[in-house]
């Protein structure tokens, strides 16, 4: 075991006594036909080109539990379609309305068809066929009213425990406290979640630069080690090829000096349990336990700015992996939220917490003042997650934050010759 893992290991050695009770805690969720369980029962409006964006948002405006995502490009993209279909069939989504303009490549009718075949009420229309803005918005609102009523009446309620949860974690706006308190607190919670039979997903392989050997030590199997090595090597080649590393001016101003330092701090969110393997965007973990999500594009499609353009993009990736709840660790503070899955915001910086309390859910800075052990922080975070899963609103959710970002990207494509449709 490396020196670094010894530090993180002290975070959560064994399942604590209180944890066995927490693992038994149940709340009422929403059962989907594939057996997955949601912590929300939402209607998702999807637009298939930027031109339909205003109408999609106008349809959702003022409606409870109606969220919006969309893809801006007119030309379609296999990655973006997989991502939108994963979100349309997310366990927190009960029904879908897809809205297109009418000239674009991506077909709203096809998105609705796949959502319907997953047992969800789903409809679609083209704005050009309905009339103009007002007619389309009225049509959309009428559909929303109908499908929302249907899922409110028909969705079976079912008991849930931590074992039914997939929780993602992302960090952004990191400072010197993120690696010392914010991310280790999530690591302590991830250990509890994994021990309870749940799924924990973290990403940002471009923020694992310099940690190759340290990561491979954590592989659950030779297959997992092979997947981790391949994902790491691709991320390092990517960073070298574009001469861009996932570290920003604010990180340096906050005291982080190198990408390696940021990587170690970011990796602390993984806790101490074995890593089961690597999944791609829009793929679900292949079993319980801890997983890494690889969002780096295929090498033959690597271009500058492709991998982690902003925090919201990474959060969407984690939601596409089935996360019903996402944790976001920010030392310097952030005011983003997410559609579909509630975002819980954690900071390791007590000054940030008190300055931005209206946006921050959890102050892990108490670990640094000795008020709280990492073990206690993990447990408190588990209680917070259970509270949000039971229907309590996270801070960004209560404030109405539903930022999303879906871009052109290429993963698992055969060759450059297959073009951007692959």
């Amino acid at each position, binding site marked *: 075991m*490396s*020196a*670094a893992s*010894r*530090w993180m290991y002290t975070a959560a050695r064994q399942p604590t006594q209180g944890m066995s009770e927490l693992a038994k805690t149940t709340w009422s969720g929403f059962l989907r036909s594939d057996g997955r369980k949601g912590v929300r029962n939402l209607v998702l409006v999807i637009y298939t080109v930027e031109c339909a964006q205003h109408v999609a948002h106008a349809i959702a405006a003022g409606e409870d539990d109606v969220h919006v995502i969309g893809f801006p490009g007119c030309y379609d993209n296999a990655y973006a379609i997989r991502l939108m279909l994963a979100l349309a069939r997310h366990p927190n989504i009960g029904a879908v309305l897809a809205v297109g303009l009418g000239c674009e490549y991506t077909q709203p009718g096809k998105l609705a068809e796949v959502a319907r075949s997953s047992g969800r009420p789903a409809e679609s229309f083209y704005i050009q066929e309905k009339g103009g803005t007002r007619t389309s918005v009225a049509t959309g609102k009428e559909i929303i009213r109908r499908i929302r009523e249907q899922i409110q009446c028909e969705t079976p309620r079912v008991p849930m425990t931590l074992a039914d949860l997939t929780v993602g974690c992302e960090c952004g706006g990191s*400072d*010197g*406290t993120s*690696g*010392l308190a914010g991310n280790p607190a999530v690591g302590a919670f991830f250990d509890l979640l994994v021990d309870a039979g749940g799924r924990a997903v973290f990403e940002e392989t471009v923020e694992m*630069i*310099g*940690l190759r050997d*340290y990561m491979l030590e954590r592989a659950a199997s030779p297959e997992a080690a092979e997947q981790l090595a391949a994902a790491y090597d691709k991320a*390092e080649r990517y*960073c*070298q090829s574009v*001469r861009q*590393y996932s*570290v*920003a*001016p*604010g*990180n*340096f*101003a*906050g*005291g*982080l*000096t*190198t*990408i*390696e*330092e940021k990587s*170690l*701090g970011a990796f*602390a969110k993984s806790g101490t349990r074995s890593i089961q393997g690597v999944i791609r965007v829009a793929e679900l973990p292949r079993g319980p336990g801890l997983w890494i999500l690889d969002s780096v594009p295929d090498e033959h499609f690597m271009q500058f700015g492709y991998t982690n353009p902003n925090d919201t993009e990474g959060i969407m990736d984690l939601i596409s992996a089935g996360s019903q709840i996402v944790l976001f660790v920010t*030392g310097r503070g952030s005011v983003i939220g997410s559609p579909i899955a509630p975002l819980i915001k954690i900071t390791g*910086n007590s*000054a940030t917490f008190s300055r931005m309390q209206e946006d921050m859910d959890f102050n892990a800075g108490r670990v*640094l*003042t*000795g008020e709280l052990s990492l073990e206690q922080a993990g447990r408190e975070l588990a209680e917070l997650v259970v509270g949000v899963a039971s229907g309590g609103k996270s801070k960004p959710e209560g404030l109405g934050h539903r930022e999303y970002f879906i871009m052109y990207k290429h993963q698992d494509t055969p060759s450059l010759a297959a073009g951007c449709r692959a």
Partner: protein
Amino acid sequence: MPRCFQVNAQDNVATMLEDGAGMVDVLGQGPGRIELAEQIALGHKVALRDIRSGEPILKFGVAIGRATHDIRAGQWVHLHNCSSNFDERSQSLDVHSGATTDTRYE
């Protein structure tokens, strides 16, 4: 008294838990104290011992980069005296704000 945090016993740097100058408590690996050679801000690192140019900077017990100058105990460790082994561009950033200095705006 301001405090800093040493993650691992091998570490030759500690992270400031608040802005500080003068004597600071070193937490994390048993009690200790160090006198800062300069003002160091929250989240930034202080050298816990003398570090020679070329030596690894250790945090979490792992090399986070290497010293580009001799560093004395108590001095601020950042872009001006520590370099990544991967990311060369970070050496050109403003040491206080992290702002780029190599991008032309006009």
